[in-house]
């Protein structure tokens, strides 16, 4: 798995960013968990230096922290048109279970933990995260188990995801409609 971009913060530590993204809606349960002091200690223990949270339409505001030597720098924002840039510069991505977000992160070959939102009415999203976790492309967690997932995770054991494509569908549609094979 690919790590984040090279670089050091103002204290000379190699910069390792954890990027948390909740997508277009809100996921306060996740933001609240990553805002906890014990959680930040776990991240520091794993060698991460920065925590950046995309909180969407959520109402829970996490605490910003400019940081000091040896602590975790924390920042947040609601929405951004450059989510891809944040993903690219992250060393670890913690994401909601939306398929767009999942596959964008996997394509960038970033270590990914998907957190399933149990408050959604029709919670089918766990299916995809669990299937991809079974295939070792990512870790799947709930807000209350995220802490443990990070302590126990071994990023070396994750397997890269090879993107699929739509040619099998296109072939069947073309044949059905009477178009010649290309």
């Amino acid at each position, binding site marked *: 798995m690919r790590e984040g971009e090279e670089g050091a913060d103002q204290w000379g530590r190699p910069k390792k960013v954890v990027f948390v993204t909740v*997508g*277009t*809606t809100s996921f306060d349960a996740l933001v609240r968990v990553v805002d906890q002091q014990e959680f930040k200690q776990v991240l520091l223990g794993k060698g991460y230096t920065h925590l950046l949270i995309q909180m969407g339409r959520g109402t829970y505001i996490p605490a910003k922290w400019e940081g000091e030597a040896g602590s975790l720098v924390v920042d947040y924002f609601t929405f951004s048109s450059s989510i891809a840039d944040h993903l690219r510069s992250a060393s670890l991505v913690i994401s909601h279970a*939306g*398929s*767009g*977000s999942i*596959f964008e992160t996997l394509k960038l070959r970033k270590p990914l933990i998907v957190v399933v939102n149990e408050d*959604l*009415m029709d919670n*089918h*999203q766990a*299916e*995809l995260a*669990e*299937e991809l976790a079974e295939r070792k492309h990512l870790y799947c967690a709930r807000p209350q188990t995220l802490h443990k997932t990070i302590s126990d995770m071994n990023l070396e054991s994750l397997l890269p995801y090879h*993107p*699929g*494509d*739509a*040619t*099998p*569908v*296109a072939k*069947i*549609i*073309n*044949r*059905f*409609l*009477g*178009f010649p094979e*290309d």
Partner: protein
Amino acid sequence: MALGIIIGVSVIVSLLLIRVLHILYRSGKPISDKSPKSYSTLVVLGSGGHTAEMINLLLALDQNRFSPRYYIAAATDNMSLQKARSLENSLAEKAGIKVAADAVQYMQIYRSREVGQSYITSVWTTLVALVHALWLMLRVRPQVILCNGPGTCIPLCAIAFLFKIVGIRWSSIFYVESIARVRRLSLSGLILYKLRIADRFFVQWPQLQRIYPRADYVGCLM
């Protein structure tokens, strides 16, 4: 008199039934016209991940065969049509042509149910969505419908099926179940599969194909 009405009604009902059965029999069978040039195509866009999957499918299809193209998205969804526009712009740029104004159109439709809306209030919103869908479908009368999951596709596909029965327009409906559905179909998928409205039904995980044998397993689109 009463007997006449009863006989009349039963004849009409029987004819209608035969017609529906005939349409169901013909649906799902390849189009027999062996020299088609192009089909007017309705592309139903969902939000976020749905749209990304649909764009992957469109990239795998020959645009000249699926033309003109009508993109439709929920009125509350601002992103999807924008993504379709940038796809069309990049396709036109690649082909080195300017897209004719009527070759691609973008439309918005009322949704039958927003994410998280209760099933009870969705009865009313579904009715509104149905009338709006009928109006749009009468304007477009597509020959091909591509959809992959959003609830907006249900009224459109139901009307397309009605058009087949009445004889307004024959269309081929292709449904790709979202990659997010691994073990169970979405409600939209289930309706189109069970009622045999979709001519071809695609799933992206082998588990689903085992439960729904009429579906084609095509691997992941993403």
